[in-house]
């Protein structure tokens, strides 16, 4: 789960990390009130979960009130890589002489958190990692002990940070690790950390992602997650408790188990179609879950046809079939053609139970996907 920049920065500020003065605004008037308080230059920054906001025109620096008004008007409501901007962070500009990259993340291969520091901040760090991996200093943290303060200092010196600010940067890094641990973050990145002409150190950007599996013990962050949804369908999926990812195609996909749902997406693509979503309904398939899943794909305007693929392990095929019948009988008219394929435990019984007035039935995964792709093609022709 991604936090917005303003959410992450409020956590930074509470923890004592220096951040620029800022206000959140949802209208041009609010943005102007904010610059009146903050002064110039002021950055107007779109609050959406999109990388490369600056390049895409989502961050502008205003030097006077006229510019502030113009930029706020431009950015609020703009479409940024598919996301509509409905709030901006108005932030005091920082007069910097140097930029650093500082981050904490989980190294999957090592099974340990890792601290990262680079003096090549302010640019795309992934490019730096690719082209010049030695420009990023790394230090693994033993998860059982936690961070020893010397480790933060070591990695900062190793990166070649100027000696007069090194201890301040190490202190920020140390605090970031505390935040990483306390908030069950999966990743925290500050790019850039700015060094000012007065040799102050300021966190000018903030990326913070939270481990969704830990939200049960992070209730404040779980509330922020609600504020972070930008897509109505993703919000709905969150309410229903589905694993859901929206894609750009027109074949709606419902299935059980992440690997098999991903495989179904891949097969839709393989047979010449284009997947509209990833939707894993998980174990069990009571009528209520099936209804909710169908509601998700039916309410996606992009969807022209649906494939419903269930491999009943412990879940029984006959129960799934009853659920599908019950769910579809609630509709006066089925809005989009649904192809169902059931396999595994009691699949044959299930296939017989399915009401073929409401759904099309196929025996194999390959056949079901091809039929759904064909159904979608017929709608678009």
């Amino acid at each position, binding site marked *: 789960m991604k936090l917005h920049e303003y959410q992450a920065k409020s956590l930074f500020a509470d923890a004592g990390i220096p951040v620029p003065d800022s206000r959140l605004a949802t209208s041009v008037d609010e943005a102007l009130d904010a610059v009146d308080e903050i002064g110039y230059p002021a950055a107007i920054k779109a609050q959406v979960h999109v*990388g490369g906001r600056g390049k895409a025109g989502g961050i502008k620096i205003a030097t006077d009130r006229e510019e502030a008004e113009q930029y706020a008007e431009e950015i609020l409501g703009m479409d940024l890589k598919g996301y509509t901007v409905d709030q901006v962070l108005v932030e005091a500009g920082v007069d910097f002489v140097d930029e650093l990259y500082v981050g904490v993340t*989980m190294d*999957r*291969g090592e*099974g*340990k*958190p890792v601290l990262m520091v680079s003096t090549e901040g302010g640019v795309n760090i*992934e490019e730096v*990692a*690719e082209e010049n991996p030695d420009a990023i200093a790394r230090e693994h943290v*033993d*998860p*059982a002990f936690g961070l020893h303060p010397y480790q933060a200092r070591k990695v900062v010196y190793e990166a070649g940070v100027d000696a007069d600010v090194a201890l301040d940067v190490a202190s920020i890094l140390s605090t970031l690790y505390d935040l990483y*641990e306390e908030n*069950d973050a*999966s990743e925290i990145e500050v790019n850039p950390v700015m060094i000012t002409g007065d040799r102050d150190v300021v966190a000018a950007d903030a990326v913070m992602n939270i*481990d*969704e*599996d*830990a939200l*049960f*013990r992070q209730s404040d962050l779980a509330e922020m997650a609600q504020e972070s949804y930008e897509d109505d369908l993703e919000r709905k999926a969150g309410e229903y408790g589905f*694993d859901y*990812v929206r*894609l750009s195609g027109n074949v709606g996909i419902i*299935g*059980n*188990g*992440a*690997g*098999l*749902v*991903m*495989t179904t*997406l*891949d*097969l*839709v*693509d*393989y047979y010449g179609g284009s*997947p509209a979503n*990833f939707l*894993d309904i998980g174990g069990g398939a009571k009528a209520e879950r099936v209804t909710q899943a169908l509601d998700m794909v039916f309410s996606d305007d992009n969807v022209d046809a649906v494939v419903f693929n269930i*491999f*009943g*392990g*412990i879940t029984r095929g006959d129960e799934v079939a009853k659920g599908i019948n019950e769910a579809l009988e609630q509709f006066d008219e089925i809005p989009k053609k649904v192809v169902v394929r059931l*396999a*595994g*435990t009691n699949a044959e019984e299930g296939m017989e139970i399915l009401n073929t007035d409401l759904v099309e039935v196929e025996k*194999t*995964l*390959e056949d079901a996907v091809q039929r759904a792709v064909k159904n979608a093609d017929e709608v678009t022709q």
Partner: protein
Amino acid sequence: MSIFVDDDTRVVVQGITGGEGKFHAGQMIEYGTNVVAGAVPGKGGQEVHGVPVYDTVDEAVEAEDADASVIFVPPAFAADAIFESLDTDLDLAVAITEGIPTQDMAKVNKRLGETDTRLIGPNCPGIITPGEAKLGILPGNIFSEGNVGLVSRSGTLTYQVVDNLTERGLGQSTAIGIGGDPIIGTSFVDALEAFEADTETDAVVMCGEIGGEDEEQAAKFIGEHMDTPVAGFIAGRTAPPGKRMGHAGAIVSGSGTGTAQSKIDALNDAGVPVGDTPEEVADHVEDFL
């Protein structure tokens, strides 16, 4: 003719009095698994399916000589349950639980390096040696005895592939779901190494998915150390970067590592044919045998 579990494995079920634990303990017993005990704090002295329940894993080992555990414990308490298994020096712990915080698993992983216990999972369907024992939630009826080893990061995808194999009369020696989380115990390489050493496994299927670099490491291992033929499948070819596809571990990073293509290329370079569909995976296995 199997790896990690057989009909001698003596199983303690952690969380046997909960809904999931109780149901699947029953299914495991019905399959013929030697379930000797349950372990649930505060429930010592009870019986579930005729199996005695103890308050701690330690007591279950003392009284019933258990050497493996299956963990059906909610995410908030699951890391603690895994630690209990590791600290009791069981040979094997199979963690079914989905949704354990990654930072908890990092701590477990640290401890794992200091013990001799093998951990399978978490967030996995478990392990089955057809005709002998199953530890987990895999549906026993789709498996058949045979000489194909299978290792996979996903549950239902495993069932799909096994179904295709069984339908063609290609039985399995052992099938393992290693789990879809970023930090897991047994890796592809661990399972492949064991299959290579198992004289009764004549072909192996490996089902990977996007995220991390475990498949690339497995490909390297296969190229350098395996004579047993391996067929591959990789899920998530159409997954966009930065989106978690259900499994916490199934995510292509912004920098483009963990893509399906990089895994397919690595496997192909190691001489492993990768099926475009699950049926094609079964075709490859048929060709091997």
